[in-house]
C-alpha cells in the first residue's frame, strides 16, 4: 500500500469537486474491495475522499412509482428493505447470494457496482494484466480460465464482472445517477454503465474522472416472479460460475440477465422475446458470439440448464 492522504466530503458535489482537484483521488465508501486492492498496490490512490455520511444512504419512492436507492445504502439494508423485498425480489435475492453477512453490512450500492474483477491474474501483480497495467498483456488467455468470461471478451481481457447485485439491476432496468464537480447530474442506464473490455479493459465504466454515483433508481415494479439462481462450487461465499437473474410473467414472457459470463452483467434485450420458447433459444441468442476457453466452455451448457431450471421454477 502506498501512502495516501484522506479527507471527508461534505456533500456529493463537494466530493466530486475534491476528486477533480486531486488527480489520482478515489472515493471510498465501504472499502471492502478498494482496501484489498490498495494493499496489493493494484490500486494506488494518492488521496481518498470519504463519501460516507453525506446523505446518500436513503431509499425513497420516486414520482414514477419506482425506488431511488442512495449510493451509500449498505447491501444488507437494501436486501432487507420492505419495498425491495416486495417489489424487486430479484435484487434482494441477488444481494443475499453475494459475499458474506459481514461484507454486506459494509458494502454499498455504488461500491458493489464498481467492484473490480476477481480474475486471479489481475490480483497477482507479478503477472501481466492489461486491466491492471495497460499494454502489459493478458496472462489469463491461455492460462487458468475456468472462472472467466465466455462472451463479450477481447484479445486484451477475458475477465468477468463479479457482482450479483449488478445482474439484478440489469434485469430491472436500473438507472445510475451521478453528479460531477460542476454539479451536473446525469442518469446512465445500467446497460451503458459497465463497458466491455475491448482494447481498454482498464476502463470499466462510463464514469468520467471525479464523477460520483449518487443513487441507483429502479422503475416502477415489473411484477412477475423474481428468481436469482447463482451456481457455484461451494454453497456460500463464492463468486458465481454463472448466475441467472430472471423476471418471468404469468404468460411466460419476461427478462433475463446473466452473471459470471462476461465483463458486465449480460443481457441482450431481443433474447427476452424468446423466453416463452424456453431456455435454449434464449441462451443461443445471448451467447451467440460466445468464445469460451477450453476450461470454461462448460459455462455455455451450464447457463442454459440453469435458465431452464429457473423457467421451470417460474412455472411451478
Amino acid at each position, binding site marked *: 500500500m502506498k501512502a495516501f492522504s484522506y479527507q471527508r466530503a461534505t456533500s456529493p458535489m463537494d466530493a466530486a469537486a475534491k476528486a477533480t482537484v486531486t488527480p489520482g483521488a478515489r472515493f471510498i465508501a465501504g472499502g471492502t474491495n478498494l482496501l484489498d486492492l490498495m494493499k496489493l498496490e493494484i490500486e494506488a490512490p494518492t488521496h481518498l475522499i470519504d463519501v460516507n455520511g453525506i446523505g446518500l444512504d436513503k431509499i425513497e419512492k420516486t414520482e414514477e412509482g419506482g425506488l431511488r436507492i442512495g449510493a451509500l445504502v449498505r447491501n444488507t439494508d437494501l436486501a432487507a428493505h420492505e419495498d425491495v423485498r416486495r417489489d424487486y425480489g430479484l435484487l434482494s435475492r441477488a444481494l443475499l447470494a453475494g459475499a458474506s453477512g459481514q461484507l454486506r453490512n459494509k458494502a454499498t450500492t455504488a461500491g458493489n457496482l464498481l467492484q473490480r474483477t476477481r480474475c486471479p491474474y489481475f490480483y497477482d501483480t507479478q503477472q501481466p494484466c492489461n486491466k491492471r497495467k495497460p499494454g502489459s498483456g493478458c*496472462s489469463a488467455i*491461455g*492460462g487458468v480460465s475456468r472462472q472467466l468470461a465466455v462472451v463479450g471478451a477481447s484479445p486484451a481481457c477475458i475477465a468477468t464482472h463479479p457482482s450479483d447485485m449488478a445482474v439484478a439491476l440489469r434485469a430491472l432496468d436500473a438507472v445510475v445517477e451521478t453528479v460531477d464537480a460542476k454539479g451536473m447530474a446525469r442518469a446512465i442506464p445500467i446497460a451503458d454503465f459497465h463497458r466491455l473490455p475491448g482494447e481498454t479493459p482498464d476502463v470499466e465504466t462510463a464514469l468520467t474522472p471525479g464523477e460520483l454515483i449518487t443513487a441507483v433508481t429502479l422503475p416502477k415494479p415489473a411484477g412477475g416472479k423474481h428468481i436469482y439462481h447463482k451456481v457455484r462450487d461451494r454453497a456460500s461465499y463464492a463468486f458465481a460460475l454463472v448466475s441467472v437473474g430472471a423476471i418471468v410473467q404469468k404468460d411466460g414472457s419476461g427478462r433475463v440477465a446473466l452473471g459470471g459470463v462476461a465483463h458486465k452483467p449480460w443481457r441482450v434485450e431481443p433474447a427476452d422475446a424468446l423466453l416463452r420458447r424456453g431456455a435454449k433459444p434464449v441462451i443461443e441468442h445471448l451467447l451467440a458470439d460466445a468464445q469460451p476457453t477450453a476450461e470454461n466452455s462448460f459455462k455455455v451448457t451450464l447457463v442454459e440448464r440453469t435458465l431452464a431450471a429457473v423457467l421451470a421454477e417460474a412455472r411451478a
Partner: protein
Amino acid sequence: MKFDTPATTNPIDQLKVIGRPTDRIDGPLKTTGTAPYANDRHDVAPNQAYGYVVVAGIAKGRVTAIDTSRARAAPRVLAVVTAQNAGPLGKGIFNVAALLAGPEVQHYHQAVGLVVAETFEQARSAAGLVRLDYELAPGAFDLSTASASAVKPKDGSSGPADAAVGDFAGAFAKAPVTLDATYTTPDQSHAMMEPHATVAVWEGDRLTVWTSNQMINWSAGDLARALGIAREKVRLVSPFVGGGFGGKLFLRADVLLAALGARATNRAVRVALPRPLMANNTTHRPATIQRIRIGCRRNGKIIAIGHESWSGNLPGGAAETAVNQTRLLYAGANRMTATRLAVLDLPEGSAMRAPGEASGMMALEIAMDEMAEKVGMDPVKFRVLNDTQEDPEKPGRPFSQRQLVKCLELGAERFAWNRRNPRPGRVRDGRWLVGMGMAAAFRNNLVTRSAARVRLDNRGVLTVETDMTDIGTGSYTIIAQTAAETMGLPLEKVAVRLGDSTFPVSCGSGGQWGGNNSTAGVYAACMKLRDAVAEKAGLDPAQAVFADGQVRGGDRRLALADIAGDAGLVAEDHIEYGDLDKRYQQSTFGAHFVEAAVDAATCEIRIRRMLAVCAAGRILNPKSARSQVIGAMTMGVGAALMEALEVDKRRGFFVNHDLASYEVPVHADIPHQEVIFLDETDPISSPMKAKGVGELGICGVAAAVANAVYNATGVRVRDYPITLDKLLHGLPA
C-alpha cells in the same frame, strides 16, 4: 521409560480424568483472544520493527540484478536483506528449496529479500520498490507430461518405493473380474487459519524466535543450520499454533528472514507471510496420478491388487507416498505397489494432513467402489469380505488392533446404509439427485520418542514442560489429563507449558503421532515423579496409591504439596519404543459414510450428512478427538469437491493463491456430521493404549463423497476435485 512389551494395567486405566470429554484448558484464552500467537507477541521485545518479504515473480531462473536503492531510500526503512548481503547461509535438513533465494530462483514466490522498516505499512510499501531483473529458465510444470520421465525414488521413511508379493501380473491377467483405472488428485494447500509468522530477537550471539511451528526441535535445529550457528544459541518458542496441517512442520522463510532482519538492524523484527504468498512460498500437498488394478474372483475375493503412483517435486524433494495403505488394507495373495517421482519446478511439495494415505485413499476407495459394483456386491460387504487380520505382505505378522469390519458394519447400521439404492441415479428429492457412498478409513499409527519434565510444588501444583505443540488439536488438555490421572491430581492442579525449545524434546505434532506419543512421554515423567514422591515419603513406590492430591501407603496418607515442600520435586523422562511396531502392524481404522445430493440441472454437489466410525485405540478426550475428526471430515469434503491449486503450466505457479480463489468448505457446505469412536484400547501402542486419530478422519472421506456422487448420478469422476463441470456431460438435463 522403554516401552517394549505390551502394556498391562497402569494408572491411566483408572479413567478418572483420561477418556472424559473435558473442555480445552486453553479454551478461555482462545475465546477471549488472549492466547499469544506469534504475530501477537508485542510483549516479548520492545521497539519491534517490521519485515515484509520480497518474492520472485518467476518459477525458475536467475535474478540477474536486484536494485534495492529505492526501497532503502523509502521512509523509515531500516534495512533490505537479500542473499547478497545476508552472509553465508546453510540449508535445513528438512528443507528442499532455499528459504532465501538468490541468484538462483527455484520456484515462484520464493523469497529473495526482506525489507525492514519501522511500521508494517512502510515495510510493505518499500518492498514494492525493490526491482528485480531475471533470466528465465525453462521448467517442468505439468505432472501429466513430466510423469513420463519419472524415476524410482530412494526408499523413504514410510517404506520402499516398490513392493511386491506373489505374481501380480499373472494373477491379474487370469482374474475373471478386473478393474484398471487411473485417478488424479490435485495439488492442495494447507490453508490453515494462522499464516506463518515470527518475531526474532538477538541478544549477542543468542537468537530467540517466537513463531508458529509444529516441530520445535526439528525447526530449532534447522534454524541453527541455516544461520550456521550452534544449536544451543537458538531458542524457538511456539506455544500456540493456529493450524498447521503439515504446513508448519518445518522451518519456513518467515523465521529465517526475521532472524536475518533482526541481525541486520539490531532490532526485534517481526515477519508474517501475507496470505497471497503462502500457496507458492510455502509447501503444499503434491498432485498425484494413480493407477489401480484389482483382480477378483467372481465371489468378490481379491486375488490381485496393484497400485502405482506418480508425483512430482523439486530436485531433492520426496515423492507423495500414495500407495502405502494399499500394502496393508485388503487381503489378496498377489500384490504390487510402486511409487515414481518426476522433477517439477513448482513450489516445494511436502507433507499435508495424512501425507500419502489421504491421497492414496482418495483413489483406492473409489476403485473399491467400482470393483464392488463389478462383482455385484454391496461396497460394505465387499470390503468386509476382503478384510485381513494379518499384514498381507508378511503373513503371520498381526495387527496390534484391527477393527475395520466392526467400523464398517456399525457405520452401515447407524447410517441406515440399507436404504441406499445400489442402482445409481435412481433417488430423486425434488430437483436433487441423492446418493450414498462409503469408504474405509486407514492411517498408520507411528510411535516415536517423546520427553517431558514435571515439577511438583508446595501448593500441590504439577507443572508439565515439554516442547510438544498444540496446533489446535487439544495437546494442552490431554497432557493435563494424563498428568492428573497419573499423579492422582484434579485437572485444575496441573499446569501445562508447551512449545519451547528449552523444554524436553517431544514427538511434536504431525503424522497423527502427537497425541499418543506426547502423553506417553508425560506419563513416563510422571511415573518417575511418583517414584521420587514415594521415596521422599518413605513409601514403597509399587504400593503407593496416588489419589485426590495425596499419596497413600499402608496407613499413611500424605499431601503431595507437603512432600514436594519448598524445594519442589522434579522428574524428567521420555518414552522410547522397542520393536513392537515391527512385530505388530500398528494402524488406525475407520469407515466414512456420506449422503450427497446433486442438482439435476446445475450439477452442484451438496453434502447432506456424514458419519465417521473410528477405531483408534483409547480415545484420550472424546471431545477434542471428535473435533479432530469432524475437522478432518470437513477437509475431506474440500478435497472431494473444491480444493485444488490450479497450475499455470506455462508460467509455473499456483494461480489461485488466496482464500477467495482457493476454496475450502464453509459452514453451509457441512450440514451434519456424526462421529463414533469404538471402545478400543491398544496395549501394543503405548502405555496410554491410544493411537492417532486426527489424520484417520480425513483418509477415505473424499472417496466416500465421490462414491455418493456416483450413486446419486451414475457419473463416475476419477479426477479430483469433483466439480459440476465434470458431471454436466454425463447428466442430461
